[in-house]
């Protein structure tokens, strides 16, 4: 009973938030709605007993990814209205629904054919975090380390891409130097 109420409540909230994200014309509203939707998604993980995944969802998505987007938005002109593509609405919605159903069929087909077996069954008597730790640091140790290297590479790439000319400070330059920098930027 409680599970059903929680499921329907959070399903409604999540769908509403993500619908706002894809339809609003204000970038700031889209960001806020996306952050709220991420938190509501973590509620499903808690209902499903994946406590650690829910905590990671909140920390990584609303803590790291949304903060990164918020900082990134300071570089862009986000106050003006976002223009939309003027395409055929029915074709877009139809294609999207078709593709989404296909994805679910890809997930569900092996289960319907009844040949799915639990590779790493849940261990009795320990919490979710211990289970995750046991599986992650035995069976999935190499993918885990590769993911760590990938995150490091992404961090270095982000710094290199966004950090160009960060050593220049306009407040410390006089007008002639600023003009010189502007001309250089046009030429490059």
């Amino acid at each position, binding site marked *: 009973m409680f599970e059903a109420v929680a499921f329907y409540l959070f399903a409604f909230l999540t769908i509403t938030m993500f619908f706002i994200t894809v339809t609003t014309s204000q970038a700031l509203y889209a*960001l806020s709605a996306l952050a709220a939707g991420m938190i509501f998604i973590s509620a499903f993980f808690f209902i499903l007993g994946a406590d650690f995944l829910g905590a990671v969802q909140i920390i990584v998505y609303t803590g790291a990814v949304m903060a990164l987007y918020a900082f990134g938005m300071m570089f862009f002109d986000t106050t003006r209205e976002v223009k939309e593509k003027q395409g055929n609405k029915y074709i877009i919605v139809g294609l999207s629904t078709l593709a989404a159903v296909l994805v679910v069929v890809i997930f569900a087909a092996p289960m319907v054919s009844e040949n799915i077996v639990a590779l790493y069954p849940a261990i009795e008597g320990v919490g979710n975090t211990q289970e995750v730790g046991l599986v992650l640091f035995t069976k999935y140790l190499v993918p885990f380390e590769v993911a760590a290297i990938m995150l490091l590479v992404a961090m270095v790439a982000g710094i290199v891409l966004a950090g160009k000319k960060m050593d220049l400070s306009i407040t410390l330059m006089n007008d002639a130097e600023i003009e010189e920098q502007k001309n250089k930027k046009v030429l490059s």
Partner: protein
Amino acid sequence: MMEIGLNHYLVLSTILFAIGLVGVMRRKNLLLLFFATEILLNAVNVAFAAISHYYGDLTGQMFAFFVIAIAASEVAVGLGLLIVWYKRHSSIDLDALTTMKG
């Protein structure tokens, strides 16, 4: 109706994925396009966690973790590229990217 099964979660995942795809197809602003891809990844994560729960298998949760890691690095690199593009063209519209159009 009152018993929540795997199908409920898969239907929810389908709806969220469809919303994300609509966003990908109709958005012109690259930043909002990134938001739509986040929705796609989250929809798949819900399906992974639900399958993991109803089959008593932890592999689904493991893949959800790796999806989250990939999403985080995608944001870091994508936002860096977006900032470079904005510095050069002062616009992040998709139409400004069609420089190879004949």
